[in-house]
């Protein structure tokens, strides 16, 4: 990986980060799609934002892998919404991906001179 140009790394990183971010946001509490999008945009101060269709594509992919689980919930006085929660398998993946991500960021830092001191 260290032999690839940084531009590629970034593209890969952004692709990979979406899954990580979604899993992380679902770690503590179930959320619906719009809530996830809003949190991502808000928490990253707009640095990370996703086309909303891509967001759902990613959600279905994660659900297909059994990492998250979505179900329709009707709360009183609200519209029916689909809430996603992290599964046990998803939690395991999240733990693993966090480790990988750390290593990736370290590598990125060495390459690009970025440091998270």
């Amino acid at each position, binding site marked *: 990986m260290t032999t690839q140009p940084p531009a590629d790394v970034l593209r890969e990183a952004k692709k990979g980060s979406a899954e990580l971010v979604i899993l992380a946001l679902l770690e503590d509490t179930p959320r619906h799609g719009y809530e996830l999008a809003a949190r991502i945009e808000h928490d990253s101060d707009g640095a990370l934002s996703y086309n909303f*269709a891509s967001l*759902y594509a990613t959600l*279905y992919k994660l659900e*297909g892998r059994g990492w998250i689980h979505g179900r329709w919930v009707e709360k009183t006085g609200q519209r029916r919404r689909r809430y996603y929660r992290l599964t046990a398998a998803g939690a395991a993946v999240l733990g693993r991906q966090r480790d990988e991500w750390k290593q990736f960021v370290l590598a990125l830092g060495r390459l690009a001179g970025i440091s998270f001191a």
Partner: protein
Amino acid sequence: MSEWTMRVRRHLKERGTELSDAVIEELADHLEDAWDARPASAAGADPDAFAADAMRRADVMALVQRAAAPSPPAPEPGNGSALSGLGGELRHTLRLLRRAPAFTAAVVAVLALGIGATTTAFELVYSALLAPLPYPDAERLVMVWEHNVTRNRPRNVISPGNYFAWSERTTSLESSGVFSPTVGNLAGDGGLPEEIRGVVVQPQILGMVGARPLAGRLFVAGDAEPGAPRTILISEGLWQRRFGAAADAVGRTVVMNGEPATIVGVLPADFRLVSYRGDFWRPVVIPPEARTTFRGRSLLSIAKLRPGIAPEAAQQELAAVFDGLVREHPEFNTGWTINVVPLREQLTSETRPALWVLFGAVVAVLLIACANVAALLLVRATGRRHEMAVKVSLGARPMHLARQLFLETMLLVGAGGVLGALLARILTRVVSTTAREAGVPLVTDGTLGGAALTFAVAITAVTALACGIGPALRARRASVNDALREGGRGGVGSRQRLRGWLVAGEVAAAMLILSGAALLGRSYAALQDVDPGFNPQQVLTARVSRMGTAAQKSQVAFADAVVARLRTLPGVTGAAVTSFLPLDGNLGIGSSFRLADRPEPAPGESPVADYRPVTPGYFATLQIPLRQGRDFSDADVEGRPRVAIVNEAFVRRLSADVSPLGRRLADSLGETQEIVGVVGDVTLAGLNAEQRPTIYLPLAQLPVGAMTFVVRTAAGEPDALGRAVAAVIREVDPNQPVSDIRPLDEVVSRSLIRPRVASAALGLFAAAALLLAAIGVYGVVAYGVSQRRSEFGVRLALGAQPGDVVRLVLRQSLVMVLGGVLVGAALAVPLSATLRSMLFGVGPGDPGTLAAVAALLVAAGLLASYVPARRGTRVDPVSALRAE
């Protein structure tokens, strides 16, 4: 439906895409939430425009792919519905196969041919060599022969005197009996007189082999007493053909060989004694004096061992008993012993080598077919490598992919197996019908037995494993890595090497079959080149048997009358009679003799000659050259001095120093004959048999009952004469049946039926092997060239000539082909030794033959490589590089 849902739907419709209701609802929710949370600056915006704008920017296609074909949830280990998964995979695999009809058809066809041919060969081998024999306690049944040690004839017919002596003294046998094939003239039932084949048997034999009559009874001991009323059993076939399956046929009296005989029973159509089938069975009547006569051997003997006695033990015990007979009758038995042959060996020893060779060849063809299929599957797997890797990256597990590939192979091989079994059914019927018409003994009745079907299933399973394991193993190793390295060449090299090995193996197997076929082909050609010693062209033959006392007494007069009339037929240039036709399989009379003026040789050392009664004009009719002396004349009849004509082999054997003319022969019956002529050698037993001393006697001085008329015509088809000859015979004796009216050249060519069938069958398989191997070479080279397009492009761009590229490709395929040829040749030398008994005029492992076959294979391999190699030179360097 909410208005937001409507907005999403409207937009999807404009884009011509569809999504499931749940997804649409979720998107609508999202848009509504976003709308509700819109910044104050957009307070007055239009919700339709807002939705349209969001949807336009949305990457709907990603969603379509994901939502339309969601990857199935990865099953937890040990928690998947294997069955429902299998059903889905089956449908998926069938879809994939339907999408590649050429590939599917090629694989199924190759497999069906391979499995069909192998199953057919198995049915032949099984029914002939392995299937249970149709007799109770068959493993205890043996044939007992006399074995002439000095003349190396281990299966000689036996003498009645010896038989009665050893059958009474032995302790190894529970029961035994003698029998002999015969022919009979059937008349007296209103039909035309007819010559039918039959067997004379001692009554106890039929019970011993478990014969059960369809109607009536078997023989009883009394039927074989001298003077008992004559009885016969008839076959189911004769019963239907001649008696219309009449219920009252049993009990009828017919005229058999001129004497009345009563039908006492009907035997089922499939009944045979050892290999002998008969349309009639007659009890053998052995006069009391025969029990003490030690002169002449003429009978066959079958026996049943006592329970617990092995054939080897019986052999030892009977040989000891026979030693006593040698001491008692040294003049007759010196040089002889006894030979106990288990029934199965008796039935199969003649065809066994040919059948195993055939089976081996077919299995080799199947192996080549498998190698080709495996290579095809590898190519397909290579083509789908990227697809596989993408699937892995999308979460498919490699094991799952391996299973899918294996399922594909199973489907292909299964289809091949089913078609192959159907093909085998047809082939078995065709082969058994053809063989029966050609007179080649096969045990199969033309239906595919349970054992053969089991074999077909087993071989299909083995084939599936052999063909499918390679690609499946490779799929298991598919990785995401492959997907990311798009256009990468990883794994191609080793795969190509594996295919190279497969093809080299095919070439080796083809080399084996081709050398076997070439050796048999050369043997057959050598047999055809053998000069039989007579000219079979333009000669018609017709056989009659003078059976019964009256007919035998009038034999000479009958023969003279018929020959005289035959000579007057238009176009006939010669006519005569011989008792035994050369090359028709009937060896006739063999007997010992000596020169009367020489001392009697020691017991067992008398020379043996074939005795052939003939009429004057026989040698001229068959154009057998008269070397010395004279032909028989009409004056050489009973009551006149006895005369003989000998062949050149006889002269070489006995009297190369002096002229044989005028010398006297003494035969084993105590008669003497003066040698009046010498004729050229004639092959009697077979074109590949050695020339044996032969003594011709005038039929008038030794009438033996059996006669074949030979008629030479000046021109035209001898067949046309057939009816005229039959008419002449009927004119002379209306009760005399005629059989086997056929041209002499047909008799000669029929004698070559076995080598012809063997070399043709092996030749057919060799052609298939050559073709399949060439296809294999072509496939591997064509694929290699397609993988190296850019390399060739670079070479050509750097100034290489097209010839250089062709040479490069040919050199590499030559290594592969030569490797296979060398391995094949190394195996062919020892394996061709199994053909030894079928070879004539060429040795096993003949270097010239092997070299020729090797050259043929190399040429075929180079040709199969040249076509794709030329294609490699037509690469446009620029486009090849751009593709990179």
